[in-house]
């Protein structure tokens, strides 16, 4: 029976191709668009990934990491004074402009970290020594900056190297290290320097401290410590564990109050920008187009083979067994279309990951969800075929 079903399916090349193509496009649209959306949302939290600290303490009303309200310098000491805190260090983060030798400007994301402990330093250095950051007028740049800040980005020999210089707000900056970093949402490279120097590079303001990064004492979770910090200082403490639900999430009169900075940041973008609508629409359209094409083609396929199916029915095959055949056919087509869609997505993904652009981050849930969606489409198509088949009288075969 299975062999028969497969034979029927592969019998007509054109129909088979149509069926697979519809599902292929649906899979590609759903997986690729959802991954690009996730990648873009991940970019909004890249500061949290690049400055990997368990706890972020920010001003009371801050909701997302790219838009913070500065605090006073002594707030570091206040957070340090909380018993649950193992260490607490200042962090500066802000957009600045770099002037290159040829006079052009580039936007960068400037990070200022504590010079003594280097808390918040890049996780992986490619070249150079992190501790050289304590030398005067020095910065550590990320890989993106090596091309972005070079005089000719298309020429690899002109990449920014260790020892090269540029200007941040007319103050000299000398490169002492190159590191790996996640790209920022604004597209600019990340540049690390010490907290004191970041203040020199930045036009003065009354308050300059973006955030205090901290860690819990041993034997305490980040969530517990964050609660203690909020209680003791009145500042807002977020944990940095990644997007997802957190035990500290709670509803307030002003809306959801998230315990994790990643979650809070991403929800801020979801609520305040058109990004999810745009991507969501594409994903939904991918689904609808998949449903439309597949159902239509599968229905046409069933109609075409109605004679054979009717003959089988006339030979005494039960409706149930025939339905199983149709479901199996739909499932197989779905599987192949899904696989081909993943193949195309992988091609896109490898290009995007190697290039760093466009954003691409595939959560493991995305292909699973896409698989379920594709199978739902296929089962819908199979259902239509089954309905048509069950209405078909075996006698009709002999009437023609």
């Amino acid at each position, binding site marked *: 029976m299975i062999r028969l079903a497969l034979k029927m399916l592969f019998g007509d*090349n054109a129909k*088979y191709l149509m069926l*697979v193509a519809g599902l292929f496009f649906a899979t590609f649209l759903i997986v690729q668009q959802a991954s690009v959306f996730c990648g873009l949302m991940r970019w909004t939290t890249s500061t949290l*990934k*690049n400055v*990997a600290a*368990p706890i972020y303490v920010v001003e009371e009303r801050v909701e997302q990491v790219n838009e913070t309200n500065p605090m*006073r*310098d*002594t*707030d570091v*000491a*206040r957070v340090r*004074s909380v*018993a649950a805190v*193992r*260490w*607490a*260090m200042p962090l500066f983060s802000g957009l600045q402009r770099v002037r290159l030798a040829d006079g052009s400007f580039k936007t960068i994301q400037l990070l200022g970290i*504590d010079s*003594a*402990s*280097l*808390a918040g*330093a890049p996780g*992986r250095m490619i070249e150079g020594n992190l*501790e050289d950051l304590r030398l005067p007028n020095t910065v550590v740049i990320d890989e993106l900056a090596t091309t972005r800040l070079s005089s000719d980005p298309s020429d690899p020999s002109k990449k920014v190297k260790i020892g090269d210089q540029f200007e941040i707000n007319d103050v000299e900056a000398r490169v002492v290290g190159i590191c*790996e970093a996640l790209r920022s949402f604004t597209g600019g490279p990340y540049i690390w320097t010490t*907290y*004191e120097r970041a*203040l*020199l590079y930045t036009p*003065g303001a*009354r*308050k*300059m401290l973006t955030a205090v990064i901290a*860690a819990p*004492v041993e034997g305490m979770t980040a969530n517990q410590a964050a609660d203690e910090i909020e209680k*003791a200082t009145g500042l807002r403490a977020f944990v*940095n*564990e990644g997007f997802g639900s957190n035990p500290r999430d709670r509803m307030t009169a002003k809306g959801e109050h998230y315990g994790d900075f990643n979650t809070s940041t991403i929800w801020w973008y979801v609520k305040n920008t058109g990004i999810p609508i745009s991507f969501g629409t594409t994903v939904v359209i991918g689904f609808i187009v998949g449903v439309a094409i597949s159902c239509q083609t599968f229905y046409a396929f069933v109609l075409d083979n109605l004679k054979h199916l009717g003959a089988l029915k006339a030979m005494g095959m039960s409706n149930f067994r025939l339905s199983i055949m149709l479901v199996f056919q739909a499932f197989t087509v779905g*599987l*192949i*279309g*899904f*696989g*081909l*869609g*993943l*193949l*195309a*997505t992988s091609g896109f*993904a*490898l290009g995007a*990951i190697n290039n760093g652009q466009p954003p*691409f*981050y*595939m959560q*493991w849930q995305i*292909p699973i969800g896409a698989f379920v969606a594709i199978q739902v489409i296929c089962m819908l198509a199979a259902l239509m075929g089954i309905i048509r088949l069950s209405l078909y009288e075996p006698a009709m075969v002999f009437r023609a």
Partner: protein
Amino acid sequence: MSIFSLILRYGSIAAAIFGVVAIIFVHQTQAEKQMPAPGNPPIMPPQKPFVESVAATGILESLSENVAIGVPIPGLVAEVPVKVNDKVKKNQVLLKLDDRDLRAEELSVQAQQEISKAQIKVSEAQLAKLRSQLERLTSVTDSRAVSRDELENRKQDVAVAEAQVAAAKAQLAAAEASLKRISLLIERLTVYAPQDGTILQVTAHAGEYAATSPKSPAMILGDIDRLQVRADIDEQNAIRIRADQKAYGYLKGDPSVTFPLEFIRLEPYVIPKISLTGSSTERVDTRVLQVIYSLERPSDPPLYVGQQVDVYIEAPDRHKSP
């Protein structure tokens, strides 16, 4: 069955299987590109010495604070007999200002003194002369030989001459006082050490102009055998501070250097915080309570006056009332 449909059939199945494998590969590649999970900083900050504590930033000073040595009047520096790092005793000469104008004045007063001395001699001679004339008149026994008027005149002359001697003497005294005054003023141009200590900084050099501005002292003197830490405590934490709480200091940049601190006093006046961060403009953020602790100067590593330290002060549990 045609070749084409065979290729289509098996090719599509193979491509689909390859697609699933490829997406797993993509997932692994992106996992490798993930940033490391949150962790500890490259150089671990010091372990907190107390469970409940108040953290503060402080600055090392010499005990009894750093004395900014000033000059009495603005003027040219003539001589600086001490160097940085010199140990000085109380009343040792630290700095001499140019005193030539006063010395010039002294010369003219000295001349004045000589004149006054000569003047005394002149008036004394005059007095002696008049006295002898009077004596001659009074020695005449016959009262008719000398007119009464003449005798009176002579007596008056002697009195005037006596007064003139006194005036000349007073003038000499005035000149002498003037000399003393000038030598005191000259003396004042030499700056002496007000206490024992070490010269920490010298900004005035011979030939330079020293101003009286308190912001730019000519030199800084301090006792660096024992140091003190001036810790700035945020006003919101100030309520948790009491006298005689235990405290530890950590040198900024080297968490391995710990030194116990001994409480000296609380500064009763809460001042606006002066930023220690090295920013180009001083930013007054908040007010801070200053607590002074003393510490024994360890032989190794060397500590320097002016270094920043992180201070942890044992404090009562904030959940219980202290």
